[in-house]
């Protein structure tokens, strides 16, 4: 491991830092997320080697998740969905003139959350990979089914989540049933005229860039592109100085929230807002004195920011050990990894020890870079919130085009895919379908088909999915549990809704 780390060059660290900086900027601008940062900056990695590409991507990921705290504290607008709970206590503190103190509490909490989740990732991912290496196609199919049912049950409505997931799978099946996967090479779900364009289906990355980049622009355009925050005060006030003593008595909170974040991150498709809301409510329920929470209590910031940064390590666990993305950002990462020739799955860590260590180094380093950049340069970074959207959005579209066009070495249809999925993503969000299950369905649909059909071809009976191994039975139990839990929560909230009406 040491020789791997000593082989890292200065470019590696510079790229991680660049990634973190760009990520923070994306995260800090409301309406732009870490997912978008990774999607938009993808073309930069095309020309980089594996190690450098990873450095940039992980820097973007960590920076993007962290940046959301800036407008959350200063303007009461969550920069990313996961910093929603940061506004509860951050904004009241900023109004009291403790903006800098609030931000620095957030930054330290973010660092701890990120590092704890990195440690969990480092220990747990290889274990999970080793365990899942013995999985046959039957168990692999069930894992995908479990992932989809968890995503669906975490959606605001399970039925809608399942429906969105199924549409995602359907979209992934367009094109040929690939010969290299043991299929017969025939095309389906399309007309013959589309064959020259869609023989291999829609490419993953243009689809993702379209859904996360173009549809965001369309939605903002429909709302008339807010005139920006010009004139808003983003001065970082510092009437009360930050000191580490604020964490005294908050260590339990810090560690608990970090673990909650890591765990929620592991669940596929569950966004960051779930992690921070869960950690925040836990702190509210469990702390000795929660009376100040919501009025500007540091403990709320600690819970929120440590949990949302802990997502990063957590979401990478299922990605690297099972090949299943833990959130929408890792969904884009899966595409970027494929591009670098990395096939994520149970074999990834054992067969690519060096790459694995490089990734860990990049992740840990990105957390420290994020910390130093934000801790000492926060005053300057806070100003990017003011960059007007009429400058920003055209640049984003341009970067999306480069990313889509260059991905398969210059195919114009990939650029049109951007537009198609930009519009699909827009419609999906308008009619209330869920993006995360759809994306995960799209990514996993192809493998789900291969695992499912090959299992049936070799065993010749549907019952094999229940009788193959004890693991299969356990997986069915988990699937049932996730559906039952979601039905239970839905029932409870409906009952509460009824009570509120009466």
């Amino acid at each position, binding site marked *: 491991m040491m020789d791997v780390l000593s082989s890292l060059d200065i470019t590696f660290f510079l790229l991680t830092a660049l990634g973190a900086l760009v990520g923070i900027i994306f995260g800090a601008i409301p309406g732009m997320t870490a997912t978008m940062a990774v999607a938009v900056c993808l073309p930069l990695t095309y020309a980089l080697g594996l190690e450098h590409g990873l450095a940039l991507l992980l820097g973007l990921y960590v920076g993007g998740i962290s940046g959301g705290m800036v407008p959350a504290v200063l303007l009461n607008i969550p920069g990313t969905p996961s910093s929603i709970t940061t506004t509860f206590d951050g904004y009241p503190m900023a109004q009291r003139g403790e903006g800098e103190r609030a931000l620095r509490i957030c930054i330290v909490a973010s660092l701890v959350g990120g590092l704890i989740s990195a440690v969990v990732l480092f220990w747990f991912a290889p274990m999970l990979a080793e365990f899942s290496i013995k999985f046959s196609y039957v168990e692999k199919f069930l894992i995908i089914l479990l992932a989809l049912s968890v995503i669906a049950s975490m959606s605001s409505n399970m039925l809608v989540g399942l429906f969105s997931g199924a549409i995602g799978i359907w979209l992934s099946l367009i094109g040929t049933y690939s010969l290299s996967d043991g*299929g017969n090479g*025939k095309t389906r779900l399309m007309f013959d005229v589309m064959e020259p364009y869609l023989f291999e289906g829609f490419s993953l990355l243009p689809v993702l860039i379209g859904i996360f980049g*173009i549809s965001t622009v369309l939605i903002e*355009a429909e709302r*008339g592109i807010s005139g920006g925050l010009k004139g808003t005060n983003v001065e970082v006030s510092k009437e009360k100085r930050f000191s580490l003593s604020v964490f005294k008595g908050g260590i339990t909170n810090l560690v608990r929230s970090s673990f909650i974040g890591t765990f929620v991150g592991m669940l596929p498709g569950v966004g960051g807002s779930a992690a921070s809301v869960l950690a925040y409510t836990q702190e509210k329920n469990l702390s000795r004195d929660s009376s100040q929470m919501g009025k500007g209590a540091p403990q709320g910031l600690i819970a929120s920011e440590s949990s949302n940064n802990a997502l990063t390590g957590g979401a990478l666990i299922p990605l690297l050990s099972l090949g299943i993305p833990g959130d929408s950002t890792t969904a884009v990462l899966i595409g970027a990894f494929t591009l670098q020739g990395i096939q994520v799955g149970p074999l990834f860590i054992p067969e690519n020890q060096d790459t694995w260590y490089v990734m860990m180094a990049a992740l840990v380093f990105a957390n420290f870079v994020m910390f130093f950049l934000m801790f000492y340069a926060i005053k300057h970074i806070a100003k990017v919130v003011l960059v007007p959207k*009429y400058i920003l959005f055209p640049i984003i579209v341009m970067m999306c085009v*480069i990313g889509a066009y260059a991905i398969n070495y210059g195919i114009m249809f990939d650029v049109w895919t951007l537009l198609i999925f930009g519009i699909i993503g827009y419609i999906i969000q308008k009619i209330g379908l869920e993006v995360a299950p759809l994306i995960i369905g799209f990514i996993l649909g192809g493998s789900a088909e291969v695992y499912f059909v090959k299992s049936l071809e070799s065993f010749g009976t549907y019952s094999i999915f229940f009788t193959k191994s004890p693991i299969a039975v356990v997986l069915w139990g988990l699937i049932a549990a996730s559906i039952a839990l979601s039905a239970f929560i839905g029932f409870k909230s409906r009952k509460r809704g009824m009570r509120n009406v009466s």
Partner: protein
Amino acid sequence: MESGTTSPLSVSIDFQTSHLFFPHIINWTIGLLFVLVLVFRVVPFLKKVKRGESALPFIGESMDGFRFVGTLVLLVAYFYLMSVVGDYFPYTGYGFLFTSIGFLFLMSLLYMHTRTKRKIIVAGINALLAPALAWVVFAKLFYITLP
């Protein structure tokens, strides 16, 4: 495709039509889920709309039609012209460079709420610099194919 020879759960897949097996199942799943969504979500939602508690998406909402349609038109024109111009100068990336300059400027103008001279100049400089920088970095430095 399916034959119940030994037990109701047994199945044999014909290789010639195996590409349709899984899509077939997904089609039925989507159909079933669609009916469920219709019954449990869409119908209650429409009732709410009737009572005036919610608004229909697209039709019932206020939207900035000018900017939305403008964005779509600009995107289509941008993507289309990019390949047309690109064909005149193959393997140079000029198609990308020239159309991007126009696109960035027009989109900036579209999104501006008040068009002052200063803002337009800033947008113009941005429209020239950003594509030029991207072109130099990607096409010249990294040798990435651009239209």
